[in-house]
């Protein structure tokens, strides 16, 4: 320990610029690894999560990007006709969110309302930390049972009621808390699997046929955009597409399980490959620069190293000192990445960004910790390459020559 302290304070820190150079390069390597790891992990997490909807016989509706949207043509009677057809011919999973309401809560967050029908609820299988499952056979003019996120559970415990003056029904409604979702429950966007909406400050409202019949067109039309038709065939969805076209003038595509797999392969796998290649190339470049920096350090500190080797410092001890020093640099960098990530996560709380606010140590979630683990692994790999290169360089120079320098 004494010799290590001597090397750090009397040799490495006396040429601090070289150490700072290495810290900055490591910082870039860590940032690149962290962002790549998080993008990849988040995408696979989204892919796994959406497996509940990506099943045989399930078709996901999607508005054709080339379809003209004439709001003048879209009417309540048109959407009603589509829903009548849906209700009488299909089982479907309905979900739509993004309806923001102001409900008092200690964190001052704007609350996002998500609406779902029984088909979606059964498919998604929400995990609850408190309370019981939702009941969809309610009278919407009385109390509506809802699920809430963890962030609201202290203010609105199970059994309490939330009064809303404005709603998609166009009149005040009363919500009754039936259950609390597990912390950091989320939903991935079907078309951007790496993007997630966290439910910590959300209220999930069950909708039934009667509710939909009385709901505003915003809700019904939005819900159609991502509606999933269950246990059906291509031909039946084609008929539904025709009904939608006739009543709303919109062209819809219905994506089967195979279409989704193909889309994933074509779109996501290609992007993931690109991310891996970019990350790999950048890491190689940074490793080369780090080796150059290490060689420069050896060149500048050669006299100190060789004198210590001459007076009895063993190669293995020198190796330990180098690994220890690199370990300190890596630790400093990991701490910096941790602080930046925590600040980023905590920033969502400061900005009152309810859809991204997460719970955990400084707001960090499992995906972040896993990415940290990968960063630590990449640091170890880089450390081995750089330290071994330094030792190789030192061993190549005869001690007498080093001392003379």
């Amino acid at each position, binding site marked *: 320990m004494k010799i290590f302290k001597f090397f750090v304070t009397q040799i490495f820190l006396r*040429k601090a*610029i070289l150490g700072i150079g290495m810290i900055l390069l490591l910082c*870039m390597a860590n940032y690149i690894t962290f962002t790549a790891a998080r993008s990849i992990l988040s*995408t696979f997490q989204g892919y796994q999560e959406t497996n509940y909807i990506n099943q045989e016989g399930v078709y996901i509706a999607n508005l054709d990007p080339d379809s003209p949207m004439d709001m003048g043509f879209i009417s309540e009677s048109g959407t009603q006709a589509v829903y009548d057809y849906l209700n009488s011919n299909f089982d479907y999973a309905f979900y739509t969110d993004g309806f923001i309401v102001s409900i008092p809560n200690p964190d001052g967050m704007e609350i996002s309302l998500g609406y779902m029908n029984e088909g979606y609820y059964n498919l998604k299988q929400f995990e609850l930390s408190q309370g019981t499952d939702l009941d969809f056979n309610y009278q919407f003019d009385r109390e509506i049972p809802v699920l809430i996120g963890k962030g609201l559970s202290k203010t609105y415990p199970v059994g309490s009621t939330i009064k809303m003056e404005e709603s998609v029904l166009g009149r005040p409604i009363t919500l009754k808390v039936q259950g609390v979702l597990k912390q950091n429950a989320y939903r991935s966007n079907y078309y951007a699997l790496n993007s997630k909406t966290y439910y910590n400050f959300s209220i999930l409202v069950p909708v039934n046929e009667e509710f939909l019949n009385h709901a505003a067109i915003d809700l019904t039309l939005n819900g159609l955009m991502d509606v999933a038709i269950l246990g059906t065939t291509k031909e039946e969805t084609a008929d539904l597409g025709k009904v939608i076209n006739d009543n709303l003038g919109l062209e819809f595509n219905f994506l089967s399980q195979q279409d989704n797999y193909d889309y994933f392969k074509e779109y996501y796998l290609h992007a*993931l490959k690109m*991310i891996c290649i970019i990350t790999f190339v950048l890491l190689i470049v940074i490793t080369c620069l780090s080796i150059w920096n290490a060689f420069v350090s050896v060149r500048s500190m050669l006299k100190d190293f060789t004198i210590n080797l001459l007076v009895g410092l063993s190669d293995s001890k020198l190796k330990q000192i180098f690994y220890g020093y690199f370990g300190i640099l890596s630790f400093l960098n990991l701490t910096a990445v941790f602080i930046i990530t925590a600040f980023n996560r905590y920033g969502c709380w400061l900005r009152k960004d309810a859809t991204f606010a997460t719970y955990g140590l400084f707001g960090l979630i499992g995906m972040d910790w896993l990415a940290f683990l990968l960063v630590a692994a990449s640091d170890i790999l880089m450390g081995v390459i750089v330290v071994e290169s330094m030792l190789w360089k030192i061993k190549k120079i005869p001690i007498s020559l080093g001392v003379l320098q």
Partner: protein
Amino acid sequence: MKKSLFRPTDILELSIAYIFCFFLNLLFDYGKTLDLDSYLLEAFLKNYMDYRTLIVLVFTSIAIVFHYQMLRRKKEEIFCRILVGATVFHITIRYIQDCLRILIPVYFLSVLANFYMNFNLASNFYLVLILITYILISARQVRKYENF
């Protein structure tokens, strides 16, 4: 470059360091023009595009490391030159001139690349100012080796 502190390997190393900094800047300019149809890739690249100046600045640290280590290696040579009649002032001026002789062609090369790729010609000028600042700061180090 008869009386220069620079050897061919030093010139090569510094040129590579400068080229790397300008190339990185060019790469960011290129990234900005990409029309990506992938949200995932776009979100990933945004992590870098948002901090492009900071990232380029971090990588310019290799130029700092170069100046620092080169002058440290040359301290005996500087001392010997002073012994045989050179002055610190002239060594410093020559050092600055040599650095600029490497920096200016690299800058013009990058301007040419920007011109060829239809990018903003002034987008890398800030790098010249930063690198000149490094040269001027490192030139002060020459004076430190006056008394070996």
